[in-house]
């Protein structure tokens, strides 16, 4: 069933359109930055954006900071919201269920295909933004005047070796996938509640926007550590030296909690739900 879901994902033009849109955002930003060379003031604008002007090899990290807060969660919410509701309204859900595919396995397969989508999207963004960075900003000719492999400065000012950079980017990819689990689980749950894909996606986005607002609200400080978006940007801590694990661990933990609870809710709801209409 997982294979079937992956086949459905990667045979669908929509997947590639979304990934292309995700890649287009950092590309656009890079073109503006490279032509005007006006960096955002430090501490404002996307993370790493002011640093990439001197070293394009850091652009994948800046690209992550660009797509993560809005674009990526929106696309995950749209796909996850469509996961069950879309099949129900297209009439394919009933044919899957009488194959038979057990309802719980269907949910798990849907979740795994969402993870696959996030991985695919992030890796596409990383690859395109790495190439963009190198081409548009060049590489700081650090060591012996040789352009490759480029040295990258961590947030703490220490040089990150190419191998270290690769490891940190790997950690970033893993962390972002985990960060998106919460969104996916919310939208997937709503997708089993309603037959409208759009409704499920909107519901999940409403939760995220609310969470984002509460994160910045001091009056809501008591619940802040439990908000799904609280630790979204914690992957930046991979680029500190030494790596700061505190928020990364917490963020991953919160996402797993949301995943467990919402996937549980989806399971409880979907297994005894009428598939009519």
């Amino acid at each position: 069933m997982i294979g079937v879901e992956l086949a459905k994902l990667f045979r669908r033009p929509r997947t590639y359109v979304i990934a292309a849109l995700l890649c287009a955002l950092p590309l656009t930003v890079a073109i503006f930055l490279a032509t005007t060379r006006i960096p955002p003031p430090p501490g404002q604008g996307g993370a790493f954006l002011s640093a990439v002007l001197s070293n394009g090899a850091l652009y994948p990290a800046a690209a992550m900071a660009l797509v993560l807060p809005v674009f990526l969660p929106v696309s995950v919410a749209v796909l996850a919201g469509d996961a069950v509701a879309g099949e129900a309204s297209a009439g394919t859900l009933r044919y899957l269920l009488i194959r038979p595919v057990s309802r719980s396995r269907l949910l798990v397969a849907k979740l795994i295909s969402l993870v696959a989508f996030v991985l695919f999207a992030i890796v596409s963004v990383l690859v395109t933004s790495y190439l963009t960075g190198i081409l548009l900003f060049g590489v700081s000719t650090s060591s012996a005047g040789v352009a490759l492999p480029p040295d990258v400065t961590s947030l703490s000012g220490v040089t990150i070796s190419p191998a270290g950079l690769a490891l940190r980017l790997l950690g970033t990819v893993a962390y972002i996938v985990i960060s998106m689990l919460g969104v996916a689980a919310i939208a997937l749950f709503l997708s089993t509640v309603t037959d409208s894909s759009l409704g499920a996606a909107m519901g999940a986005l409403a939760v995220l926007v609310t969470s984002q607002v509460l994160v910045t609200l001091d009056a809501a400080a008591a619940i802040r550590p439990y908000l799904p978006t609280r630790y979204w940007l914690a992957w930046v801590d991979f680029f500190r030296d030494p790596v700061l694990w505190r928020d990364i661990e917490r963020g991953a933990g919160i996402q797993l909690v949301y995943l467990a609870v919402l996937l549980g809710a989806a399971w409880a709801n979907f297994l005894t739900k009428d598939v009519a209409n």
Partner: protein
Amino acid sequence: MDIGRTVVTAQGLRRWAVVLGLVLVLAAVPVVVNVWPVRAAGVDPADLRSRIAASGIQAHQGYAQSAGLLGLPALPNLTQVTALVSGTTEMRTWYAAPDRWRVDVLGEGTEHGLYQTPEAQFTWDFGDNQLTRIEGAQPVRLPRAADLTPPALARQVLSAAAGDSLTPLDAKRVAGVEAAGMRLTPAGTDTTVAHVDIWADPEHGLPLQVEVTARGGARPVFVTRFLEIRFGAPDAGVLTPPAPRPGIGYSVAEAPDALSALNRGQPAPLPATLAGLPRRDAVAGVSAAGVYGAGLASFVVLALPGRSGGRAFRQITTYGLEVPVPDGNEAAVIETGLLNVLAVRNRNRTFLVAGLVGPDLLRRVATGLAGVTG
């Protein structure tokens, strides 16, 4: 209710019960951790105080957070200082010895590092891509994040308030350590501080949490505490500042902040006494700034030169209240409940006064500064 019931409703309810149980268990975890009783580690305050004083050699590393509710407006050249007392600051600290430590201030996508090595201090600013080596001692400087880690603040407060009374407080779990507590209550009435609560690890004496409560306030207006702490020496590599190299900016400075730069100019002399309090300059050669008063009721007076003094004065009059002073001079004060700032314009000179002192004292100081001549 019969509507909607089906032959599998009971099954569905059982599943929902499982999910609900999971939610309850997960929600209970932080609650239980919070209310788990702390084994009271009763330590006599005087004993604790001496242990804290001796804890400067205790190596540790941790993650600290300070939060101020003072709501001070951003003053020119002083934004970094006002941010410290008006917002939340997240810090990572590594401490091996009084002359070997590092404090990183974390921001979203930024980092400011401060390294103390036996030879010099280094600051690293990721946003500016700038490494700075600070040479020589800094007799006067602005407060910075590293002064607000619980050990630094607690020691500062205790050394300033030598004679004030100490009472024991209930133990408290801070960053997983069961810390002994004590309350310091200033004796004098000039200060705005009602009391300072300090919790420290009873074993090493390392302060883990400091809370400052202003007079008339029920809740502390400034809290700094460790969220994570590990005892033991940090890696030598961590304490080594980044090496200057092409691609990052590097400079060597002797007066890295506005205040120490000021001290290098030719500021106006400060009076020997203000509001009846003698000036007690600690370091010779420092003329731009003077410290008056005793204990927590101390305040700092700066003399600012013409142009920048005028700007600072205007900023303070915008946010503050006017204070009547003699001789046709002007003065204004910004009150935050804990930290109060006074600006006095005396002809073309500007005096800036800041301290944890009450408005009554500041009015007397204003009159004193307005009367300075020559």
